[in-house]
């Protein structure tokens, strides 16, 4: 996963020095992109939409979900556009029958095994590819399991996990360098876990929430959002997002506060922010609860300085 060769693959943040350009064709359109770009970069430049799940501009591509596959002339099998670098003269097809079939099957496989109800954009994607997950029958094996609520800051609902590895990357090599979680087990039973499946307060987790920020399905969710969703009162259309600067230390991370009904319900940071690239620490991510302390529902453990106290449940 985090093999060294992946480091050779360029992240899609803009290069500072002018680069050698590579010309290729995508769906018959000719396009020039800097050497080292991925096929996905070329598609984006052309405005050709390619679905992605495990890819994020701030993380090294792991090319595991395979929803972004495209057909490259001369290649025996389809290639993941998110990680394959462009070559001069490459001829790429993004919506051939082969591509459509594999994308549809991948989506059907995921939707038949994982709860995708809180994955943004997923319903549209399933519809676009005419995916019918129910054709695998009512007995199709799933990853259904109880939600893990073991601390007061965020929950882990692995019944919603598509195993995109993003949280592992964010927690480990790519961002946080904490390595609290990893992929464990094998095959269909592969899953995200701490060592010996210990609860988060016993693990190395520092509650930065950077895993929550990259999770594409809502499997990782701040406790407040989860509570509001449980109560049926989470309503994104009623929310406003305001950028501010995190007041807790001198770094000055950009903080986006999401407010619903006069209450801060979530804090994020923009992915394209040069300093944070979407990351925060426990104070930025969860300190707003401190700001709002006094809210009856949360009690003393909402104090962000005491996050390791195990939750009572």
């Amino acid at each position: 996963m985090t093999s060294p060769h992946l480091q050779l693959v360029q992240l899609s943040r803009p290069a500072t020095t002018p680069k050698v350009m590579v010309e290729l064709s995508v769906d018959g359109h000719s396009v020039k992109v800097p050497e080292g770009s991925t096929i996905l970069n070329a598609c984006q430049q052309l405005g050709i939409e390619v679905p992605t799940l495990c890819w994020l501009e701030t993380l090294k591509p792991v090319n595991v979900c395979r929803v972004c596959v495209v057909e490259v002339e001369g290649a025996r099998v389809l290639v993941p556009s998110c990680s394959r670098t462009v070559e001069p003269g490459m001829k790429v097809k993004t919506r051939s029958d082969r591509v459509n079939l594999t994308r549809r099957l991948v989506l059907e496989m995921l939707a038949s095994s994982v709860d995708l109800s809180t994955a943004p954009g997923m319903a549209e994607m399933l519809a676009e590819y005419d995916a019918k997950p129910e054709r695998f029958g009512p007995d199709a094996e799933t990853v259904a399991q109880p939600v893990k609520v073991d601390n007061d800051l965020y929950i882990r609902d692995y019944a919603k996990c598509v195993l995109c590895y993003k949280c592992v990357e964010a927690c480990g090599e790519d961002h946080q360098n904490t390595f609290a979680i990893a992929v464990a087990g094998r095959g269909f039973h592969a899953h995200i876990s701490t060592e010996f499946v210990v609860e988060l307060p016993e693990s190395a987790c520092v509650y930065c929430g950077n895993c929550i920020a990259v999770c594409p399905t809502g499997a990782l969710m701040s406790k407040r959002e989860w509570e509001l969703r449980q109560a049926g009162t989470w309503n994104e259309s009623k929310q406003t997002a305001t950028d501010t600067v995190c007041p807790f230390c001198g770094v000055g991370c950009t903080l986006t506060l999401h407010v619903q009904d006069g209450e801060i319900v979530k804090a994020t940071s923009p992915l394209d922010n040069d300093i944070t690239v979407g990351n925060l620490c426990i104070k930025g991510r969860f300190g707003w609860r401190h700001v709002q302390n006094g809210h009856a529902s949360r009690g003393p453990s909402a104090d962000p300085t005491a996050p390791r106290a195990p939750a009572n449940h």
Partner: protein
Amino acid sequence: MDIKISDATPSPDERDAVDRRLGPPRASWDGAELRTARDMHVGFGGKEQRDRRHLLLPALQALQERIGWISEGGFNYVCERLSVPPAEAWGVATFYMMLSTQPRPRRVLHVCDDIACKVKGAKEVCRGLRTHHSPPLPHGVVGGHSEEPRGAHATLNEHHGAWTTSPCLGLCDVAPAGLLIEAGPVVVERSIGELSSEYAMGLLGGGAEPDDVLTQATTIGGIGALRLLKRIGKVDPTSLDDYKASGGYKALEKAFQLGPEGVIREVTEAKLLGRGGAAFPTGRKWEAVRTQPEKTRYIICNADESEPGTFKDRILLTGDPFALVEAMTIAAFAAGCSRGYFYIRGEYPLAAKRVQHAIDMARAAGLLGPTVMGTSFAFEIEVRRGAGAYICGEETAIFESIEGKRGEPRNKPPFPVQHGLFNKPTIMNNVETLANVLPIIIDGGAAAARIGTEQSAGTRLFCLSGHVAKPGVYEVPMGTTLGELMTLAGGVSGNGTLQCALLGGAAGSFVRADEMGLILTHEDTRAAGVSLGSGVVVAFDSSVDMKDILHRIAKFFRDESCGQCVPCRVGTVRQEEALHRIATKKTIGGVKGELALLEEIGLAMKDGSICGLGQTAYAAVESAIKRLNLYPV
């Protein structure tokens, strides 16, 4: 990065097992029990310690071999010694089926229930054990660990063994097969052929102790002069003198005269294609590594041999280990590699022992080390053992495994000849491929190319098992027909009527009884829509329930998928479910509907998977549907 571990501490035995594998800790920084005054002033760790990550699997194996499972205390100690975050180490420990993170008895019998053993009585063995002993242990740790007592050291009955089912153990020639492992200060590992439930029960009771060497003789045979098998059973595999007396190390001598480019010229002229399944030209692979600007280069002998039905490499590893050491040395010399690895599947204890012995002898005789044969060429070889994962035969998964990570294949490109082990240029060759190198160097590439056909040169090892009278390994020139091969193996056994054969392994395809005229070359099999794979031929007589066999193959892929990419992780499960629905007559849309569904799942796995496992997981099923017409509609 701080390592945060729990309070569980290792037992003295666990500490000892790990220290024997890793060497003693240098300071309390990396796990020493006592904190010295010096530790307060000098820190160890950092990059140097993290660079030992590649020892993670060997260290976990040391615990498994000593205690029989990996306890939290032992696990913590390994993390501390190697500075590996526990979550990451957990991911590795739970990847391999021969490692257990649940308490287990010391003595465990692994009983093969895979295809070749299935038709030779494995079901009866398992049934006997189930009825008269116990249910099998659950597989691995996939479900997690939370209900089990943590930190407790094994409190299980020392004298009562347990058993578990296993995929193909590479002993199909002596099916039904088993592997006994007893943890302890000196681990006992024994391959067992012709297993019966009575004998198995005796083993689990602690009574019978099988021989170190597999006593059931395997058949070695062939058509024409044996090139690869000529020493098997004739020359003592533990004696360097005997090996030399039978022509050993003449090829290395000649290789030094030819020089690197000369060696590669001969191998290229011999038209040697890789025998591990992908049939890539070996000369081209070596040349690609030889011409890399990066000077640190590696070579790995792929001895993971886990393709169901395959056991030819076992015969070479146990019967002629010096030849493989010599051949690897030649390849390393040709491509400029300074270090080599034998990655031997964990289920091959005798092979690992014999190869290690051969390496030690060769080193002592100056045939490995800083000045190989007195030349300026320096080369070292290390043995690494797998731990129960078919996927770790895929070349890039081997890199990950040796590096101390989960055996998850990498996406290609970049290719191993540029970015392989530790991100350095690496040659990966199958055992049989390497065995071909010696006769090529001795007789010349042109002579080797004259054997076989224009496009498929040389001889090839085939593994015959299932319903054949004389199961074994047969060396024949490429171009031999399947029927000739069957005759060589004494013809059909069982009820005497052939139903079909599986060609190429679980990743291969079925051929019908009326297709025995099939010519065994790359070009002819390709034209027929099948493949030679790893040289597997499992014969099935007309009494065998092929749907049952097919279901076992589907289960194999499901169990062995690494789980990384969606088409394979979920596709292998959906494939097995569809076959199950047909078998239990609970089809969706009738058999026709299920076959259409299987076809789509198969296409997505073939086209969308990262590696060869997912890409071939539908091959046998497809051939059963289309060639055998197993599910008429």
